[in-house]
């Protein structure tokens, strides 16, 4: 006997952290669960599941969005990037290093979402001031750090990324 239509899985093909992937999901499957359970990307954290905390934030076509408010079937044909895309060959990205250096995380539960937000934000505003940084962080809840270390880390990365490149190779 065939399953009721709402339980039938649909094919989802998309680019995940730079690789073409495919999977199948029931329509009701949240993107956050799909990434964790089917794609084994457990860096995507889930907490409130109704859009308040921001810890599930991933990038879809470059934009920072709540994965818990997105259906897996909606990313068919899209590009999705998670925190797993940041480090390369075991080497943390500049942003991750700065978070570590400035104690931008403690338990780390909120961190993957925040890192993805920051990356999307810095693409749109490459030279934000502190107020703008704080405003953007307002979309995330962190119960450990008090945010100050994150602000410092982000400011440092902004400075590093905007440093003029040397004219002569040194």
């Amino acid at each position, binding site marked *: 006997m065939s399953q009721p239509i*709402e*339980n039938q899985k649909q094919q989802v093909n998309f680019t995940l952290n730079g690789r073409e992937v495919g999977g199948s999901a029931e329509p009701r499957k949240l993107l956050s669960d799909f990434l964790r359970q089917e794609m084994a990307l457990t860096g995507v954290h889930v907490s409130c599941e109704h*859009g308040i905390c921001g810890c599930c934030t991933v990038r879809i076509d470059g*934009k920072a969005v709540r994965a*818990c408010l997105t259906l897996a*079937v909606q990313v068919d044909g899209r590009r999705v990037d998670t925190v797993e895309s940041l480090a390369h060959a075991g080497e943390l990205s500049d942003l991750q290093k700065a978070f570590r250096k400035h104690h931008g995380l403690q338990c780390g539960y909120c961190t993957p979402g925040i890192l993805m937000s920051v990356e999307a934000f810095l693409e749109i505003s490459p030279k934000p001031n502190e107020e703008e940084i704080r*405003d953007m962080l*307002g979309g995330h809840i962190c119960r450990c750090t008090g945010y100050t270390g994150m602000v410092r880390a982000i400011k440092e990365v902004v400075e590093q990324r905007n440093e003029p490149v040397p004219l002569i190779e040194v």
Partner: protein
Amino acid sequence: MKPKGFEYLRAHSVEQALDSLASNGDDAKIISGGNSLMAMLNFRLLEPKVLIDISRLEALSGIEYKGDYLEVGAAATQAQLQAWPGLAERMPLLALAVPHIGHFQTRSKGTVCGSIAHSDPSSELPLCLALLGGSVVLRSKRGEKVLKAADFQLGMLSTACADDEMVVAVRFPVKRQGAGYAFTEVARRKGDFAIIAIAAEAVGGTIRLGIGGVADKPAVREWSDLATDALDDKLNELAWELGGNDDIHASAKYRRQLVRRLGREVIETAQENGVAVKETN
């Protein structure tokens, strides 16, 4: 915290979405950004049988300046509106209000029309639409109609959109000649649900004041040529009329005081902004 099962239809045209609405009626829901709808599905406050996704419809993704008004299509995001080049100049109220809608991470996906269709009384865009006297474009297999904000907004999460209709666009009137605008909001955390949101337009001796978050839908009042001390009485009257409740976020008394104090402040700022506009013209 997971939605109940439903059938998912990615619409390839507005007509296809309307067909599905016509045959499924109340059992179908339109999804675009999904910020509000997905939360309600996750809580199982809603259990539609069919979800019609219109977020990829090119025909609905535009923001178009049409002289008297700005028309925002049903798939256009709040971030898109925020980035619209003429916003500060032509739509000063929206420029002030949009940064208060959710957060950077939700405006990226949340749509303008979704917020209007959801009709949460504490939302910024329904308040702006009501204050500016904008309108909503509804379409169904039966045809298209345009409703004034006041006729569209019926109450808490309740609108005049029929089961077989969908919001295809909203129209925000552009800045009126010589008008000044102001907007403010009180929330526990910036971007959270507003305990109160206040918008005002001042032009000549006329003031329009809109209050969101207190009654079950945005409330708009218009007063002309008020004596200075009469304003306090009007605001006090309004504060009582709105009938705000005691809840976990604020007491009814505190809400009334916000109407009185912030109401005056916002009106004065709108008037000052109006004067500033005149001087630069």
